[in-house]
């Protein structure tokens, strides 16, 4: 079962893609590097969400909490208490993990259906954004401004554009690899069993609580770490961006467009939609604010109507047809 993971690790295509991505900052202008960095942030976030939302089939809308803890809380620790951001990253990730475990436990203990889970996590997300906007320690409604990035690695600084890009590339690669690893491990099979039929999974002896908590904790901690890195890149901890339920909705939509529950699906969705949105915003943002979200919405609606499983399975089908009938039968 794990063969697939090691094959991916040894795959020249993987490393080739990474190397090509890594030399992008030398080729592209800083504007496009910025767009790619943002795309990588969302690749990482959508991939980490995929562990819970795609593989275990639980549409969690609470991920803005984990991103918010990773960003706002670690920023507050640095600015208000002088705690090094590396330590802040670890503290935030641990808190996110604990919170994730609590949410997963509530879900299991009270036997929430799919819909109730969506609603309860959305209620948690709204509560989180109200708390942050009303609590001065976390910057309140005006947010927090981090010190300038001077490239001091020990202080969690990466030296602006290029450094931030490479760090995000590394994080995004880790998140995607974690997806590949989980999908090909027993955990991945248990999660998919739980997604497809929770009662049957329980009946054949799958420890549902344990695997739900494991998936949620991994997902929450990854999202929190990405949140810390994202806020360092942004320099400004904006509560309306980082802990608003809208960021979760965006992630969910990217993952849906790419292909839920697939290792590369969420990454594909984010890589297609984020640059599209950013370029639209750059070109028309001043005259038509909101246009990129409008287009995201339209893309999502059309993708769901045309190919409900997402773009990745569609591309695979087209690829198989193009390669000819010899391999068309391959799953």
């Amino acid at each position, binding site marked *: 079962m794990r063969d697939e993971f090691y094959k991916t690790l040894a795959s020249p295509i993987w490393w080739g893609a990474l190397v090509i991505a890594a030399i992008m900052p030398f080729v592209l202008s800083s504007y496009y590097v910025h767009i790619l960095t943002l795309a990588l942030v969302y690749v990482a976030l959508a991939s980490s969400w995929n562990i819970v939302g795609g593989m275990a089939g639980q549409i969690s809308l609470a991920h803005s909490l984990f991103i918010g803890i990773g960003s706002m809380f670690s920023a507050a620790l640095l600015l208000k208490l002088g705690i090094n951001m590396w330590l802040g990253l670890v503290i935030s990730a641990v808190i996110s993990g604990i919170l994730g475990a609590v949410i997963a436990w509530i879900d299991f203990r009270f036997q929430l259906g799919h819909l109730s889970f969506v609603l309860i996590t959305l209620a948690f997300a709204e509560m989180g954004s109200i708390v942050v906007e009303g609590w001065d320690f976390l910057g309140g409604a005006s947010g927090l401004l981090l010190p300038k990035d001077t490239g001091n690695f020990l202080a969690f600084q990466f030296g602006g554009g290029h450094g931030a890009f490479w760090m995000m590339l590394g994080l995004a690669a880790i998140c995607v690899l974690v997806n590949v690893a989980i999908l090909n491990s027993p955990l991945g099979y248990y999660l998919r069993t739980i997604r497809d039929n929770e009662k049957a999974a329980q009946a054949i002896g799958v420890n549902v609580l344990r695997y739900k908590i494991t998936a949620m904790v991994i997902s929450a901690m990854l999202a929190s770490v990405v949140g810390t890195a994202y806020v360092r890149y942004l320099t400004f901890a904006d509560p309306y961006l980082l802990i608003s339920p809208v960021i979760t909705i965006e992630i969910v939509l990217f993952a849906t467009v790419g292909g839920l529950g697939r290792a590369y699906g969420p990454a594909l969705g984010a890589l297609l939609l984020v640059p599209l949105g950013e370029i639209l915003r750059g070109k028309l943002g001043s005259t038509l604010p909101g246009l990129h979200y409008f287009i995201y919405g339209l893309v999502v609606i059309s993708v769901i*109507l045309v190919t409900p499983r997402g773009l990745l399975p569609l591309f695979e089908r087209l690829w198989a047809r193009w390669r000819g009938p010899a391999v068309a039968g391959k799953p």
Partner: protein
Amino acid sequence: MTELYQALAQGLLIGATYGLLALGMGLVYGVSGVVNFSHGDFISLGMFMCLALYSAFAMDPYVSIIITVPLMTAIGALVYIFLIRPMVGHQFLMVVQLTLGLSLVLQNGILMVFGGEPARTPSFVESKLIILGDVVLRVPRIVAFVVSFALAIGLYIMLRSTDFGRSIRAVHQNAHAAALMGINVGRVQVLTFALGIGILALAAALLLPGTPIQPTQGLRYTVITLLVVVLGGMTNFVGIMLGGLIIGIAEAFGTIYLDGPIGLLLPYIIFVAIMLFLPKGLTWSSAR
């Protein structure tokens, strides 16, 4: 004591309108199993339509419902036919994601047309107050309360004793059997969805006077509506109105008695607590 009466009165008044918002969603869920996550953005759409009519013709929100209600009902029917009906039979969660996408489209469509600044729509009753003893009540809220309850009762009578109401209840109880009895299930589903959105146009006009509006408010209305619907046990008529009153009162108590963020959190805390200990909502005592 004055504060207590004031909080209770405010909560009851706003709660009735929350109940009305939620009735539309509950009806739709009962008939086609769809939970519309763009509900709040349709409320926004209704409010901004009123704003547009005011800016163009100086029309009072209470008058503009003559235009907004039929328009929104038609939009609701089209959305159901072209977007939601193709998804019936797919996974339930795909509809959730589709309506989340629709919510982005609506919210940002409004943003593109009207801009992001908070706006007000004046109405002739906007600043009128009624003072009962020590309790101060705003007239628009009283109007909203009365109309919401009248509409809820009207809907209840419609469901009880008209053919359309009976066919809605039949589809809700057993769509298959209803089809066998000669009810056009597809038509009932479209009409219910359209009715649900049409009610929102009315509720929007009721909420509008004295409330600043902005395009991003939709999600918060969606969340409030969902809280109420779930509290009410999804499809139970009386439960939903009761849920609306509870959330309204929780909100009023939270803002009057508690300082800062904790006050705003109160409705959510009550919601989570009720959900955890009464997972079927407030209808645990009813037979269904």
